């Protein structure tokens, strides 16, 4: 009999459990809307969600669905289905997984609870080309319209020129027009209000981050990844604001009481790459050494590293365009590398763990750049190893743990020498 080697992550915070409930409620809402005859949109987490909230549109986010499936260890079956459709193992496991979900003739009861077919697909090439192409297949399969939102890559750093903002804002307007053509009404006043709410959420997220910088940290990335969910699906909503307010309150209390994730915090780690969604317990694995994975880069992929003062409710589309284009995952490299170097310093990180998802065209390309930058600027080492966070078929528990063991042990030895 095979031994089960994966474990769920151990959460420490009450609010992240509440966020978990909000996630389930969100999916139930989408399902109910579809049953009530409302059209449903399929989209991707980096397409600004505020435009969907402003239309009360039920949206299934096709990068979030695979991670939900992954967390239940069901991803392998759906990834396999996409491969049978002709999608090579070289292309993104998230997209293979979602395509498998899209084409599956029968679905697991868990997926069936989350899955609804699309009436409109809105996808982008931000941050990578996978979604813009794989959604084409899904649109064809479900015979539904597709709007492609073209995002220029960021070759400017923080100062995005007006012509680029204008271009992407125009793309957003195109997405709104497409929604209106297909039965949705985007309320522009509501959109403006959502900009205010997003601004508030970003401000709260920065305060949450500040709490996490304290030693010992009151929140590890096991909670952090769930906590980042509102950034991905709930920006521009009161629910997102309320959840972050509660989280901040809980963290402040822990900081005041000096309550860390573990009692004797010896090492602080940061994770770069896709987390092991089918085995979040791997993050807890290092705790036996007194190490905590304080942060994970994926918590920031939907505007988490963003300066909220840039949001102007009077210019909703331009504000959303700026937020999207300046996102750390929008190539090219300066914003990503600067962000990681800064985070390593601010979160007092002792070591960076870089995991390579073989089928990702985006994140593995940053590994060497990030490794060199954090070592050169901060003297902090990085360990890089293969780990596909979604495709459980590729997971090697022994090797992954051995990689973590050797890295953490060498960091501890280095600390002892200091």
């Amino acid at each position, binding site marked *: 009999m095979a031994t089960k080697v994966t474990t769920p992550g151990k959460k420490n915070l009450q609010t992240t459990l509440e966020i978990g409930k909000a996630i389930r409620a969100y999916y139930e809402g989408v399902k109910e809307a579809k049953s009530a005859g409302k059209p449903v949109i399929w989209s991707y987490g980096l397409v600004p969600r505020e435009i969907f909230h402003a239309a009360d549109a039920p949206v299934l986010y096709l990068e979030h669905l695979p991670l939900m499936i992954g967390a239940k260890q069901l991803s392998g079956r759906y990834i396999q289905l996409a491969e049978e459709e002709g999608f090579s193992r070289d292309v993104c496991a998230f997209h293979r997984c979602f395509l498998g979900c899209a084409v599956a003739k029968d679905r697991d009861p868990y997926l069936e609870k989350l899955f609804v077919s699309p009436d409109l697909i809105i996808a982008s090439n931000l941050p990578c080309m996978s979604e813009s192409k794989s959604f084409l297949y899904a649109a064809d399969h479900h015979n539904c319209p597709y709007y492609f939102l073209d995002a220029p890559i960021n070759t400017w750093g923080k100062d995005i020129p007006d012509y680029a903002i204008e271009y992407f804002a125009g793309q957003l307007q195109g997405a709104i027009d497409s929604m209106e053509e297909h039965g949705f009404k985007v309320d522009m006043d509501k959109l403006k209000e959502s900009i205010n709410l997003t601004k508030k959420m970003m401000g709260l997220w920065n305060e949450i981050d500040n709490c996490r910088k304290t030693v010992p940290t009151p929140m590890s990335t096991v909670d952090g990844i769930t906590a980042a969910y509102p950034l991905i699906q709930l920006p521009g909503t009161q629910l997102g604001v309320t959840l972050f307010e509660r989280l901040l309150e809980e963290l402040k209390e822990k900081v005041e009481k000096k309550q860390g994730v573990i009692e004797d915090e010896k090492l602080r780690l940061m994770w770069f790459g896709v987390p092991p969604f089918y085995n979040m317990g791997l993050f807890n694995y290092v705790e036996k050494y007194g190490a905590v994975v304080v942060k994970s880069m994926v918590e920031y992929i939907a505007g988490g590293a963003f300066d909220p003062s840039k949001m102007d409710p009077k210019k909703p589309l331009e504000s959303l365009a700026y937020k999207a284009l300046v996102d750390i995952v929008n190539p090219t490299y300066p914003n990503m590398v600067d962000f990681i170097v800064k985070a390593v310093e601010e979160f007092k990180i002792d070591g960076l763990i870089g995991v390579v998802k073989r089928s990702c065209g985006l994140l593995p390309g*940053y590994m060497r750049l990030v490794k060199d930058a954090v070592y050169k600027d901060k003297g902090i080492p990085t360990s890089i190893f293969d780990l596909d966070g979604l495709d459980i078929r590729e997971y090697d528990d022994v090797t992954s743990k051995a990689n973590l063991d050797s890295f953490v042990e060498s960091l501890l030895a280095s600390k002892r020498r200091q």
Partner: protein
Amino acid sequence: MGTLETMKDIFDNPNKIIEEWKKDGRKVVGHRCMYVPEEIIHAAGMLPYPTFGTPEPIKKADSYFQPCACEFVRNLFDLALDKKFGFLDSMVLCNTCDAVRHLYNMWDTYVDSVPCYMVNNPQKMYDESGFKFYRMELEKFKKLMEDLSGNKITDESLKKSIELYDETRKLLKELNDLRKRDIPAISGSEFLVTSMASMLMPKEKANPLLRKLIDEVKNREIKNADGPRILLTGSIIDNPTLIELVEDMGGVVAVDDLCTSAKYFWYTTKPNNDPMDAIVRFNLERTLCACAHPSEDRYDYLQELIREFNVDGIIYFNIKYCHPFVYESAIFRKKLEEEVPTLTLEVDHSLSGLGQLKTRVQAFIEML
């Protein structure tokens, strides 16, 4: 030496072109991917030089890129680290696939000897707002080329460059049309070498050679032309070995939709008094690269090739981890197979595993 041999010599020894060009102190600007407008580089008095890889194994680049990045891009970066592109005065990339975006990141960070610039092109075609955005980017690029060369680019000089480059495209297309015949006048491998040599050469030299070649081969018939007619598509092929492999197995490579072939010359610039606008529209009023949208455009174009070149079968040669074509082949496969049998093959840019490829190609050709 016949003109085909001359083309082969240029293809094999591109350094001769560089040496000759640089003799007078003129500059060379390397580039990769089709949204870098060569005409602007040329109008500034510099030689646009399309960078190709080699089938050599990768040595240094694998400690920078993870092995899951496109092997062609890793190969280019390897050559850059090895200073094989040391003759370039600048390198220009554009926004195509994720791998090329990372090539920019790596080059900009680790290759000090040759500065690298990124042209930020839209990936959505036929969109007026995209034209405006691209125009702004190209104006910046034009200024950069003026500064690099020390030469002002005027509308007149740009128009002349457009005319010259269009002439090359027309001549390559005319030569390519000789492959439509039942017995083509030029083989697929000969054509690829000619096309790539023409891309490498100054067009002032390429055009007379192409005219001469058309004249030389127009009454020619290639040998062993009774096999099935193949359309070759997929990732960049910058070496005739794969085409030769298909030909050796009895296929007739009737047409190839490659960055190094048809994609380079299929369209010409539309008449326009504003040469910058002409370049913008030339690049954004067509979907030739699999990275761009709408994809339907590429599907229609493949249909056109199938019809015009009387194609019996399609082979996708996808370089491992070349995401644009790996997606495209999966998306188009079912529809294409309704028209003609289609074979999708994953290949290494370094051309390892040719034996296994040969078996699959042979089986496909026999099946046709």
